[in-house]
């Protein structure tokens, strides 16, 4: 699979070290719930209604692997005392009945809070006390309560994983970098629309305040065993 050229990155200064083991890190799991992760719901349901389920095969292939990495990542972060936050593609009740962003209203990529599609997967469910943020903007930082939650916890480094790599993960990473967070994208705990897009996104995202690592490397970073 060919990698894209990224010549402007050659001009950029190097990504600074992120000493995650010294504290200030949080794990943000983006949009992994039944709507996005259960092939019979959400995205899968929308695709079935159009008769194009096969188009999402590569996404679900990646997701199946990513879920295992996500489980390990969440477990590792909890063991290290790293806060874990979850977002869902769910309408914001506080802004009115099923308020969704104008863009989500067009795409249809959202669900109601009382829908079964809003539920988390049994294997990847928030623990008591962990934040759950409902949002319909693509970037998690589009929901004001996300940054409020990060601020309360003194977060400086964001570990990002979830779906989609070329949607919420990419937008949140760029947004967070602009806001001064050090961002670590966990490549094998993300799924993109296609395999090619996964490669593309992971290649094009790295740089500035964003680095890309796999689950094993992130856990070693939390241990202080690697840069």
């Amino acid at each position, binding site marked *: *699979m*060919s*990698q*894209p*050229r990224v*010549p402007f*990155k*050659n001009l*950029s*200064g*190097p*990504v600074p*070290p992120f000493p995650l083991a010294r504290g200030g890190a949080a794990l943000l799991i983006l949009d992994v719930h039944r709507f996005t992760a259960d092939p019979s719901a959400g995205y899968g349901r929308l695709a079935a209604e159009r008769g194009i389920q096969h188009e999402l095969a590569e996404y679900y*292939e*990646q997701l199946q*692997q*990513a879920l295992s990495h996500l489980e390990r990542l969440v477990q590792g972060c909890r063991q290290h005392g790293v806060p874990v936050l979850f977002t869902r593609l769910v309408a914001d009740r506080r802004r009115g009945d099923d308020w969704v962003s104008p863009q989500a209203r067009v795409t249809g990529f959202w669900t109601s809070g009382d829908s079964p599609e809003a539920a988390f997967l049994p294997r990847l469910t928030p623990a008591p006390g962990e934040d759950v943020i409902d949002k319909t903007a693509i970037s998690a930082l589009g929901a004001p309560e996300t940054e409020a939650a990060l601020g309360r916890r003194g977060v400086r480094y964001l570990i990002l994983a979830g779906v989609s790599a070329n949607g919420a993960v990419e937008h949140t990473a760029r947004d967070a970098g602009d806001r001064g967070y050090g961002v670590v994208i966990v*490549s*094998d705990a993300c799924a993109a629309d296609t*395999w090619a897009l*996964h490669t593309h996104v992971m290649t094009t995202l*790295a*740089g500035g305040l964003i*680095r*890309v690592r*796999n*689950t*094993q490397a992130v856990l070693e970073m939390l241990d202080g*065993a*690697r*840069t």
Partner: protein
Amino acid sequence: MSHIQTVAGPIEPEALGITYMHEHILCDQRRCRQEGLQRPRSAEGLMVLDDVAVAVEELTDIRRLGADAIVEVTMQAWGRDLTSLRRISEATGLKIIATSGFYVELCHPMIIADQSIDELADGLVTEITEGADGTGIRTGLLKAAVSRPVVEGPEKKCARAVARAARRTGAAITTHTSGAIRFEIPGGNIGWQLLDLFEAEGVDPRRVIVGHVDENADLRNLQALCRRGAFVQFDVIGKHHWMLDETRAGLIVALVAAGFVDHLLLSTDRARRSELRHYGGLGYAYLLSRFVPMLREAGVGDEAMRRMLVENPRRALSIQAS
């Protein structure tokens, strides 16, 4: 007296002609630990070359173009096959120099965790002085590799072992310095940090080849590496996702103009089937058939070309008799 160690035996340095300094002929990344998402039904991205007949075909191509030697940088634990390399050398008439050392940590053999730095160095010295993999075929170069943005962890241990083996044998060290983490390293490659480590171990920087400098290049960094004495190796020629060949040519012209021609080495680092002509890729031949003419067009003269392709490889690969 010094010699260059090929898989067919030692030769005098003067017997070495045009040399590719960083290639894979047979390798198998499937033997390495795999991390990250694994795309089903697709091994095309992996570094796998396992067909001797295809290798003979490809290398016969470059022999016809005037190549005399090729440095094979696949090491133990991911597919080094010295017996087949000797057969390929015999079939093509091409001199092949094999390598000892350690690739990135995903491809480390189990012994890394169990052995001390000096024990690892002992094994490398044995490969260079007596033979490797139970074949009696000696290697002629050492290699260290880094896949992190700093030299740390098991890769640091390996680099130290390589340095100690270099001191004991007189063999040069070639290096893997950047790859996916190239945008996290000041200067674009880890060469400077590796030179610090090697020098601390007593290795002369003039015996070090900083490889993959054309994955993320900064002319200032390359000049600094040259001033420090190291070779800088443009060895992913034709791989345009890293950098355009026009850019490589421009950098080489600038380095030659700055007086650093004696530090320059060239190669293509073929490691995947898709990169071979047999499978529709550019092949090893690209260096001599396309890139060298591009350099000539850019103003690199015959003498500079001879130094990059012949004289510098002779110097880099020469092992002083102790």
